[in-house]
């Protein structure tokens, strides 16, 4: 049954909370493997749904699910090694929350009822908060507080948005089950005003979680203070889930004939996020924060692409997948750097290429990937978004988009070259580069390369199905 996707990791997570630490590590990997298998099965239509009122299998959700599951699998291996080396006190809490986190995220991907979706997204906030607080430093405490408070406030607004959408159903006096899939069918009859208001609150609400500016403020703090495996999950998987919420609402708006309104909002927030990210990536002193801002930028790109629609929509979906893979790889590499040098400040480290060549390789390759260069997939997705922007008659937006991209690349390139090559006197604490910590980033990057060269037909069809509802196309 499809519900197993979230039940299994949740049960495993609850169990891990009470099991001795040593069991937890094994459980983490086993659960991750099982979950990946379940995701594959879900893709192969082997899992029937029992609670169709609340859950459904949608192409967009399936994509996010697969990516999440794959990333989690890679991270789980990394996490085991990470726990061992960074002396986590509360190991069972860590493992348990990781699994619960996976469970809630899986729940997001298959949720069909707006409020269930809301519950799941709010739940991700709550179960990931302990992850951020894992190292119990003052900074971590502050980051957690901001994360929980701002995300909760934001998401509360999304709940309001869900109520407004319900109201629009009521006013139109239609009697359908309150699920996205059934609402989509009657979208044209819904009350447009309340739908718009609802969308506004949903994009602000889920946008907070997704990291759209100006609601992004928690993100750099949380992503940089969290332990690296958790950062990787936050950036690579959680943001997508929040995006899924916005995406669902946008689909509804599109079908209701209000696509222009929601598109403009998405474009606006997308560009704003990209610029805000650009401001802070330039001359950023902390490389994990740099990565966090880069996530904001990429979420902006995705929002922009979805807003543009058409050809760019295909690009945006591709971008979501590749960004998850590459960004989580980057955060894992950043974790390796942190373990090796014990500092997050760019000025205090250097010559990564000499001290940790393997980490350097994955980190630099990730940077190349995130900057939109081949052979990584972001190259193609950004190209398509750009083309889409021109095609849909938004040359000004396209120019702004290009400018923002450049701004971010300029900032990131500076930091990455500094970390990788600049000579540094304060010599490093030479940790070992353990295999378990270096391989997962490679695997993630490799996945992006492979997807850029060869995409499985099933995935291609799913992407096409995803964008079809929004009028996306890949034929100009």
């Amino acid at each position, binding site marked *: 049954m499809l519900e197993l996707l979230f039940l299994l990791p949740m049960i495993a997570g609850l169990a891990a909370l009470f099991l001795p630490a040593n069991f937890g590590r094994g459980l983490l990997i086993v659960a991750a493997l099982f979950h990946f298998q379940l995701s594959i099965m879900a893709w192969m239509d082997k899992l029937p749904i029992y609670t169709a009122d609340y859950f459904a299998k949608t192409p967009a959700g399936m994509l996010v699910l697969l990516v999440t599951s794959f990333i989690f699998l890679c991270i789980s291996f990394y996490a085991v090694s990470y726990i061992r080396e960074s002396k986590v006190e509360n190991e069972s809490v860590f493992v348990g929350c990781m699994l619960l986190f996976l469970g809630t995220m899986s729940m997001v991907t298959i949720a069909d009822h707006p409020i269930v979706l809301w519950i799941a997204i709010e739940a991700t906030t709550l179960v990931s908060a302990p992850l951020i607080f894992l190292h119990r430093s003052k900074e971590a405490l502050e980051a957690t*507080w901001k994360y929980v*408070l701002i995300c909760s406030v934001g998401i509360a607004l999304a709940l309001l948005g869900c109520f407004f959408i319900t109201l629009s159903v009521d006013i139109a006096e239609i009697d359908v089950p309150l699920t996205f899939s059934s609402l989509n069918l009657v979208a044209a009859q819904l009350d447009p005003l309340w739908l718009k208001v609802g969308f506004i609150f949903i994009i602000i609400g889920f946008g907070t979680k997704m990291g759209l500016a100006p609601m992004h403020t928690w993100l750099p703090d949380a992503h940089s203070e969290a332990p690296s495996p958790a950062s990787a999950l936050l950036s690579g998987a959680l943001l997508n889930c929040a995006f899924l919420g916005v995406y669902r609402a946008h689909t509804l708006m599109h079908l209701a004939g209000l696509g222009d309104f929601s598109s403009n909002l998405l474009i606006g927030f997308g560009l704003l996020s990209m610029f805000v990210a650009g401001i802070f990536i330039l001359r950023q002193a902390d490389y994990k924060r740099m990565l966090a801002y880069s996530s904001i930028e990429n979420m902006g790109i995705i929002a922009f692409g979805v807003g543009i629609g058409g050809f760019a929509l295909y690009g945006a979906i591709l971008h979501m997948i590749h960004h998850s893979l590459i960004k989580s790889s980057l955060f894992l590499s950043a974790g390796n750097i942190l373990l090796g040098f014990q500092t997050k400040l760019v000025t205090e480290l250097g010559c990564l290429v000499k001290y940790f060549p393997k980490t350097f390789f994955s980190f630099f390759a990730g940077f190349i990937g995130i900057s939109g260069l081949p052979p990584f997939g972001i190259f193609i997705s950004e190209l398509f978004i750009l083309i889409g922007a021109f095609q849909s008659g938004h040359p000004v937006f396209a120019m702004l988009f290009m400018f923002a991209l450049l701004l971010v690349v300029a900032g990131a390139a500076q930091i990455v070259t500094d970390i990788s090559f600049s000579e540094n006197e304060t010599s490093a604490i030479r940790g070992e580069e353990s295999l378990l910590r270096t391989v997962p980033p490679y695997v993630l990057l490799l996945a992006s390369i492979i997807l850029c060269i060869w995409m499985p037909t099933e995935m291609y069809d799913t992407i096409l199905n995803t964008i079809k509802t929004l009028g996306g196309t890949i034929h100009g």
Partner: protein
Amino acid sequence: MINLNDAVLVIILLTILLSLASNRLLSLVKNMAIQGFMVSLIPLLLERHSSIGSGGLIFFQVMILIKAVLIPGLLYVALKRISIKREIEPIVGYHASLFAGLVIILLSIFITDKLHLSVPDGNEMLLTTAITTMSAGFFLMMSRRKAITQVIGYLMLENGIYLVGTALTKHSHTIYVVEFGVLLDLLVGVMIMGIIMHNINHAYDDIDTDRLNRLKD
């Protein structure tokens, strides 16, 4: 005969004004308990909800339990542990806050009026209260320094949203399982906030959010 419904709403508005004016954290928590209780009562008093099944009754009991007892209780415990009694030096002073509260109420009435929306049964008063509650929640969060006041602000926001939900939507959509999930999230949320607050107090000997100012660019 007094419209029971309106009376409850007036009480809610009163609690809002009280919490804006109060500097004692303990009385704030008590206020929240009253507000939670009243908010939970509203759906029962609405006419169109008259035909509530047994599932519904149980749900409302649980709701009152969580909103009026468990959450304030949690806050109370947290407050006892951190042994801080009053909010000193808020960002916006108490008299100003009270005044702001009145302005918020006026604005809410104005917005409700302006929207001239087809709220079912003409429950404008309910909508006004809801908007006021939400706005006041935001106001509390922005104008106070203590972490616990911000949690209370968040709860107030949540109460307001809940009022909107009950005020505006038809009951037929309300599936208790779903709403129960929302409540559960709220509860766990407050619990986690309480734990973090405890840790903040532990780390800084205070729960002043001004101290939480290290992470910035």
